[in-house]
């Protein structure tokens, strides 16, 4: 029951994200969608991932998006075409995108329901303890962990360098 509630919130919020004109509303709706996904993770008995989703995605990445939207004073999207025309009839990438998404969805649902009625119920519990996650993370996946830390360092340096204002001969 809770699953359907969270799933509905996630899907509706995501649909509204791609349908909104105002980018600030898009970011806020995406945060709502992430909240619903976090609830789904709790239902899947993964409390650590649920909380990390809120901390990292909804609390940090989306703040970053919001800052950029506000600092750029992102304009509402100009529309070069008539809004009332259905996406399937608009020219070019829009039609392609809508059809592609529809085809992808149909294909995925077909592939997933090929199990023939067996919904693959969850047997046995998941791994909920953070201790077990930590042990696995630092022993089996230790290399990936270290590589990720270098990735974050590179991303940090890259973001700072790319976003720095161009100055001609001025020093900071």
């Amino acid at each position, binding site marked *: 029951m809770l699953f359907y509630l969270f799933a509905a919130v996630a899907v509706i919020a995501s649909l509204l994200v791609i349908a909104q004109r105002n980018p*600030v509303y898009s970011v*806020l709706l995406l*945060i709502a969608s992430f909240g619903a996904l976090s609830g789904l993770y709790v239902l899947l008995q993964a*409390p*650590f991932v649920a*909380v*990390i989703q*809120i*901390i990292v995605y*909804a*609390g*940090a990445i989306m*703040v970053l998006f*919001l*800052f950029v939207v*506000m*600092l750029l004073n992102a304009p509402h999207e100009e529309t070069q075409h008539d809004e009332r025309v259905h996406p399937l009839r608009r020219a070019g990438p829009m039609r392609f995108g809508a059809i592609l998404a529809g085809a992808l969805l149909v294909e995925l649902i077909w592939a997933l329901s090929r199990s023939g009625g067996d919904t693959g119920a969850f047997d046995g519990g998941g791994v909920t303890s*953070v201790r077990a996650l930590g042990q696995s993370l630092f022993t089996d996946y230790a290399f990936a962990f270290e590589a990720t830390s270098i990735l974050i360092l590179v991303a940090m340096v890259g973001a700072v360098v790319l976003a720095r204002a161009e100055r001609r001969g001025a020093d900071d």
Partner: protein
Amino acid sequence: MTPLLLAQIVLTLFVFVMLLNSAAIMVYVERKVAAMLQQRLGPYLVGPRGLLQPLADVVKLMFKEELRPRAADAILFALAPIISATCAFAAFAVVPFGAQTTLFGLLGEPLRLQVADVNVAILVIFAIASMSVYGIVLAGWSSNSKYSLLGGLRSSAQMISYELSYGLALASVLVVGNSLSLTDIVNHQSGYWLGFIPRWFVFLQPLGFLIYLTAGTAETNRAPFDFPEAEQELVAGYHTEYSSMSFAMFFLAEYINMVTVSAVATDLFLGGWHGPFLPESLGWIWFLLKVAALLFFYVWMRWTLPRYRYDQLMKFGWKVLLPVAVLNLIATAAGVLYFGA
């Protein structure tokens, strides 16, 4: 509807009402303590010794006209104080404030004095602290005025910068306490060394305690880190355009955030509800005393220390507090490895 479920519902309502009361009490305490520190009287007209002053403030705020600038974004303008207040209350939901009690044998099983006993409680507090940034940044943006926007952006940048040190201080406690659940950490701190020194984590982690309090002060936008809402600088920062109940909600959110930071510090570092002379079931009295002491310290800091300028504040957060917090974590981990605590 078992008695335990009924007791839990009553407990939730009780915590909510007590948080509201604590905000009102903090309003009075702040003004009286400020007055004493500045050698004047403070509120004394309303009620005996001015004790009804918070009531007068609430009545005044309720009767003020609710304004909204015409160019303000209506939905976000209304949503921002709601987000702030909600996150402030929600963070207290995982804080335990007393030992398990059976209410003098009325209940079949013991009731935990905690609204929600999650075994990742520390992370939940951190998550809700991350979400409260949105209340401020949306308030700043939706007011559509330059003071609000600057105040909002600066305040949220400050909050997300100090969140890192906050999280690292929490991580150091996690290393020592070996659990993410606040109840377990408090229970770890019962008992005494040498018979009279309580086993509080503040003695194992003095630097962690200081880092936590500093980061907590910056997170709640209190002095000396309250540049974004300083009257002399930015009118009132992100809540310039708010009046009446919306302003009251921001006000409320700030005080309740203070109470939450103090309560979590008490649980993590000062032994929670453990204390001498009282039985376990009355431990919540010790908890209240410790939280009150921390809150007094908060108010004392505000009216004693001068305010940091914004760039000094950010430099301090990134160049001083963060490296110190990282070193503290490494030293703690090394200590635990060596001493095997």
